[in-house]
């Protein structure tokens, strides 16, 4: 006993030569920042710089007839608030985004619940379900354009065969029909991604928890309502935000299917900006709409990122 307590005084203490100044974690942050430099450079070049340029242009009037942009202050923003066509684009965007987000998530969730139960051909069906995801959007637009075509379209021929209609219908030339078509196409494109999210979420649902609920007397409905959906809540948050951001940005299938028409029935903000910039060459106004549009995307994007960060912790 006594010789043990004596030993520290016998050998003087010194600090190990391997010790790091600033503690064991020192230097880790610096290394992290180093790793971020390439990504930050790319972000600056392709995102930040063009955005700042657009922000600058939104304070100018700059059309095809003008030699150089002319500073007009907040004039463009005032025009947006009073221009009924642009306000119309906001409303159209709101309708498009709500419908596509709602249907993508409900169908994605339903499909994930079906595919989560083992059955024959499950793996194959899962694989097939991912097809729209890997398909280029333009091909998807072409495919759905063919389905909705007023003369030889699949929908018309099926409806005629079943006697639901007497004459072929030009779906894309009515306001509601065109909106339905772009919503269906985008939903079809988004379902696989959301399904994948939900399947991933379902796979880490504790099986014994569900069994415990069954022993407690829960049928399918209560298992879904009381256990599966609460478990998927974080995933649901992420998909809602992801859906909103993605659908706010969406351009290609709408452009290919309807070109924003008939008249302005499917002119969402992305189409509006494109038209202003590259058809009317009203660059200043296009930039302004773009800035407002980005401003609407930012809050949901922020919530999405925050949700991701919180889950990473």
């Amino acid at each position, binding site marked *: 006993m006594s010789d043990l307590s004596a030993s520290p005084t016998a050998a003087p203490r010194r600090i190990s030569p391997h010790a790091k100044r600033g503690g064991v974690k020192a230097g880790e942050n610096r290394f992290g920042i180093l790793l971020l430099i390439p990504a930050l450079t790319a972000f600056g070049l392709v995102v930040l710089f063009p955005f700042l340029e657009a922000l600058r242009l939104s304070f100018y009037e700059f059309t095809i007839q003008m030699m150089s942009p002319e500073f007009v202050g907040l004039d463009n923003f005032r025009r947006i608030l009073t221009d009924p066509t642009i306000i119309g684009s906001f409303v159209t965007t709101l309708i498009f985004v709500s419908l596509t987000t709602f249907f993508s998530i409900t169908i994605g969730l339903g499909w994930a619940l079906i595919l989560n139960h083992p059955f024959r051909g499950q793996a194959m069906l899962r694989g097939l379900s991912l097809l729209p995801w890997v398909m280029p959007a333009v091909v998807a637009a072409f495919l759905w354009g063919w389905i909705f075509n007023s003369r030889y379209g699949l929908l018309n021929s099926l409806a005629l065969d079943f006697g639901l209609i007497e004459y072929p219908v030009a779906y894309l030339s009515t306001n509601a029909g065109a909106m339905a078509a772009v919503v269906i196409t985008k939903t079809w494109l988004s379902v696989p991604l959301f399904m994948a999210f939900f399947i991933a979420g379902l796979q880490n649902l*504790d099986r*014994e*928890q569900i*069994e*415990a*609920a*069954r*022993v*407690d*007397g*829960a*049928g399918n409905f*209560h298992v879904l309502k*009381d*256990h599966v959906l*609460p*478990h998927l*809540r974080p995933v649901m948050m992420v998909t809602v935000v992801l859906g909103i951001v993605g659908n706010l940005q969406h351009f290609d299938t709408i452009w290919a299917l309807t070109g924003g028409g008939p008249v302005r029935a499917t002119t969402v903000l992305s189409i509006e900006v494109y038209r202003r910039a590259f058809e009317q060459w009203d660059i200043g106004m296009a930039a302004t709409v773009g800035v407002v549009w980005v401003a609407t995307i930012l809050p949901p994007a922020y919530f999405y990122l925050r949700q991701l960060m919180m889950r990473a912790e």
Partner: protein
Amino acid sequence: MADLKIEGLNKRYGSVSVLRDIDLTIEHGEFVVFVGPSGCGKSTLLRMICGLDDVTSGQLMLANEVINDVPSSKRGIAMVFQSYALYPHMSVADNMGYALKLAKTPKDEIESRVRNAAEILQIVPLLERKPRQLSGGQRQRVAIGRAIVREPDVFLFDEPLSNLDAALRVDMRMEFARLKDRLGTTMIYVTHDQVEAMTLADKIVVMHDGRIEQVGSPISLYNNPVNRFVAGFIGSPKMNFLAARFTDGAVAFQSGHLHMPHASARLTEIGIRPEHLRVGDDGEGVVQGRLVATEHLGSDTFAMVEVADSERPVMVRIPGERRIPHGSSLSLTFDAANVHMFDAEGTALPNETRRADAA
């Protein structure tokens, strides 16, 4: 009244046979423990009783009704899972009241029953917490509470103590004993720990490789194991086995002998528990060996003695503290009445001296 009856039950997963020919009757109010090594099918049997797995063949009867195809939500059986399986997004109170809520029990009755169960388990202060804010032992109590609240016909427990540390396990074991007296419900308790089985059970069901080896009270299994497996499984430390032959009215070992005139010629092995061996040569059986190691527990000293007739060192329990030099030769002795005898298949052979004792 026979409460739960299992007849000719089999379970296969594809071509793998997990349970074979299970026959078992569990009386109302009995505390039954299924015990056996990991992978012997205990959980599978429990899952079939509560309806989480299909029965491949055979019958499952509760109060004389065949319940093979009754979904678990309709069986009135409560189960405590090994992982506790608490509902993570519900408070402790909601976890415990969930089954009652599904059964459309009035709110104030749910509240009073939850409170009552919480008082029994001493978790009243935890009722508003979420499961992740609880320690392992507290989760365990909540899981038990969730089962008690339902006042079920049958309780099932799947290795409920295996995730707790040793000290807590002893405490909870005591609480199970108290719970059993207090509730008086039929309870089926699964464990791989034979000490838990011995201390809690009215009736132990020893399982091995998908079969029931023996059913009986703890003491009857300890005194009269029907085969070598049960003999080796029940009792701690384990029973010692010595290769033996019966010739000319005596049992012979390489390193000793046992005076036993009525043994069977089929005898190939005898079993003797550590607590029935002692150092010396005054008993009916004597073997010679060499001490290889000792364990000192204070209350007892366990000596491990190398004997020519056993592959593993023979374990001897010596009451109190004894120091014996390692490597020394010694002779071990025992009484014929404490000897278990087995044939080549491992089936127990009758011991006449023991019979006479018991009578």
